[in-house]
């Protein structure tokens, strides 16, 4: 049996290796799914943020976490005029009166985080005029003011200072609270039921139209929640997976393979080549990796591919060369290499086909445990604010959370989700690596 197959057979007996492999398989499946479901340009576009996220709440936690803790935090509810009935009332002399009722069935006892009305008017010259009223399930009617509507209008009902002073509390609380004087209860509860926003529109043109959408923002959203720019964290956390895996894998491959080949070349050629490689390794030891990466990030560009390049270049002459050299030195005199030389194999052929493959099994564990190191390195750079400018990554989510003092404000999910994914990746590869180490490292086999 070849050493590889034997090794894999032995690996099955380590539960940690099996668990590690399962985690890695799950991560790879997620990465593949993400790349197919949200193509790269679309992911960038989504993460740039802006209007497309305007119907999601700010800093909403995941739904399941709230329900697990016994909460009843509201999800986002919307009511659109397209689905509601519009009644046209008495019309006279080019003026039309429309009445639309946007109704939401509010089942929660906690309050929404915001209430906003999006308006979109279609007119030629004269802007329509709209009057808004709020009707609670008890039938109480609260006027919300009136305004002319431009092509695009946005009424932030929950930020209406006048309304706030009239209600005696924040509008999103006051509009949904049990009737009664404000401030009597310790912790007011929302009253479930059917709430209506009554829009009375005056159109001054025969053909002008008004589309309205009421958004009652919740406090929780989806599986993973949202960030301070209303972006769905799922985009970043999903896309972080292929980015992290690719970065970790490419950096690990880049550094170990080049290091190994260079070490083998040094051993094979000997003499000044070997000496030069040794000196370069010592110089490289003096250069501190992270400060140089930070310098490159601040002074040049924070593109993830540039960072990857720098990591690989600085990793080529890493301390590993000394270790590989010690392993390769005895091979130089081995009989099968003598034989290869006798049949006329070229130098590169001997290095690449005879020397390098021989110590690959010993290298495999190092390689696997290196991957999470680089995944965390990428996250570290992002936490320092040197993440890739356009790509969503786990580190950037952590950075945003840190920058917005997520822990201080109690948005724990914002930190815990990317952290859990990072930890999972780290554990998966490390568990596999440690098991591989015991399988493929002959010195450890008896231990």
């Amino acid at each position, binding site marked *: 049996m070849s050493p590889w197959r034997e090794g894999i057979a032995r690996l099955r007996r380590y539960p*940690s290796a099996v668990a*590690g492999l399962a985690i890695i398989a799950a991560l790879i499946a997620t990465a593949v799914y993400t790349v197919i479901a949200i193509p790269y340009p679309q992911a960038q576009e989504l993460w740039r943020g802006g209007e497309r996220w305007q119907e999601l709440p700010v800093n909403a936690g995941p739904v399941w976490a709230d329900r697990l803790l016994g909460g009843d935090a509201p999800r986002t509810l919307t009511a659109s005029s397209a689905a509601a009935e519009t009644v046209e009332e008495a019309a006279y002399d080019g003026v039309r009166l429309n009445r639309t009722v946007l109704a939401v069935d509010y089942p929660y006892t906690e309050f929404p985080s915001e209430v906003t009305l999006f308006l979109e008017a279609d007119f030629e010259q004269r802007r329509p005029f709209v009057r808004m009223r709020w009707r609670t399930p008890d039938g109480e009617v609260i006027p919300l003011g009136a305004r002319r509507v431009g092509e695009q209008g946005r009424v932030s009902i929950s930020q209406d200072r006048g309304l706030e002073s009239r209600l005696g509390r924040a509008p999103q609380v006051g509009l949904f609270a049990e009737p009664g004087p404000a401030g009597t209860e310790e912790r007011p509860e929302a009253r479930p039921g059917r709430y209506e926003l009554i829009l009375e529109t005056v159109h001054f043109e025969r053909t002008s139209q008004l589309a309205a959408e009421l958004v009652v923002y919740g406090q929780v959203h989806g599986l993973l929640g949202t960030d301070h720019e209303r972006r769905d964290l799922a985009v970043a956390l999903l896309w972080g997976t292929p980015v992290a895996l690719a970065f970790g894998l490419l950096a690990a491959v880049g550094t170990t393979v080049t290091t190994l080949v260079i070490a083998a070349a040094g051993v094979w050629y000997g003499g000044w080549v070997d000496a030069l490689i040794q*000196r370069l390794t*010592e*110089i490289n*030891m*003096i*250069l*501190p990796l*992270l*400060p*140089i990466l*930070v*310098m*490159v990030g*601040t*002074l*040049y560009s924070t593109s993830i591919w540039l960072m990857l390049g720098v990591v690989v270049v600085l990793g080529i002459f890493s301390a590993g060369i000394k270790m590989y050299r010690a392993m390769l030195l005895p091979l130089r005199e081995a009989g099968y290499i003598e034989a290869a030389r006798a049949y006329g194999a070229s130098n590169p052929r001997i290095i690449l086909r005879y020397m390098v493959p021989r110590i690959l099994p010993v290298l495999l564990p190092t390689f696997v*445990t290196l991957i*999470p*190191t680089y995944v*965390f390195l990428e*996250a*570290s750079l992002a*936490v*320092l604010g040197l993440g890739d400018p356009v790509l969503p990554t786990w580190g950037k989510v*952590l950075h945003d959370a*840190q920058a917005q003092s997520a*822990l*201080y404000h*109690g948005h*724990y999910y914002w*930190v*815990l989700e990317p*952290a859990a994914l*990072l*930890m999972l990746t*780290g*554990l998966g*590869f*490390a*568990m596999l*690596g*440690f098991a591989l180490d015991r399988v493929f490292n002959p*010195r*450890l086999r*008896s*231990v």
Partner: protein
Amino acid sequence: MRALLSGSALRDLGRLGLFTAKRLGALLVTVLIGVYLTIVIANMGGKVDELRMVQIRSEVAEQVRADPAFQDLSAEERQRLMERQVQLEVERLRLDEPFFWRSLDYLRQAMLLDLGRAEQMHSDAGSRQVYNIIAERLPATLVLFGTGNLLVFFVSVYAALGLSRRYGSALDRAVIGLAPSSAAPGWFYGIFLILLLAFIAPLFPSGGMVAAPPPESAWAYAASLARHMALPLAAIFISQIFISIYSWRTFFLIHSSEDYVEMARAKGLPERLIERRYILRPSLSPIVTSFLLMLIGLWSGAIILEQVFNWPGLGTLLFEAIGQRDTPVIIGSVVIFAYLLAATVFLLDILYAILDPRVRLDRERS
């Protein structure tokens, strides 16, 4: 007989001297190249100068415009004044010379440990000397990482010795199982610790080095420092302890399965003696190596851990310096790091020769 002995001893000494000189020379060249590379990178190969020129121009223009004394000068005169001021500043920073010559000059100053003055930054006491800026931050880094790394080192070596004595036990297997947790760096655990012990259960402060304002009495100061140090220290400890125990344990196990150890056991020597004389003595040089390298590692601090805990150490300093493109401070910290590392490598070479007789023999053959 005696003459012969002293002759060979002399030859040995001569060889050692030659070896030392060669090694010192090689290390010096290494430091030289490493520092020069850092200088080039920190100056972006000279591109930082262009940024500096723009900055000087806008600063001078701002100064001249804001100064009421220059209000009644004509536009032309003011322009000339600005030009002259820019010229003065350029000459002060010697930006009119080509970058290559200046970089050689920076290199000479750096190698002579003449760290010079910072461009933007200053120490909290107000000094612009790079030396003072670094000296002010050094104690913060040393007290945190010194405590942390020494703790990790001694706890792990001691625990590893204990585990290697009864490997295969439940405790041993638990440590092996926990070793992969070290895949995550210290700052990562720091975030969790801050979340748990500073926000959910507010037992410790979430950042900083002492309470503000700093307590007056030395005892209160030390107590406040200890409270602030607890979380970062725990983060360092958690992230390193298991992998450290694991690798030392493996190391001791490999050494304790050597034939001469078996032989000593067969002779019936007491376990303690075997441990001291047959396991620890031959494995002393790797232990010393990793101890010294760990001490050197202290110097650079850890940029991110210090950032996460808002710790005013060298890592934070370096990060700030890079952000402000204050090259003298960047180069200063790298130079000191390079020198310390080179000195350690040199010390290790000598120590190996003393601790490990095989190394000496090897050299004579080569």
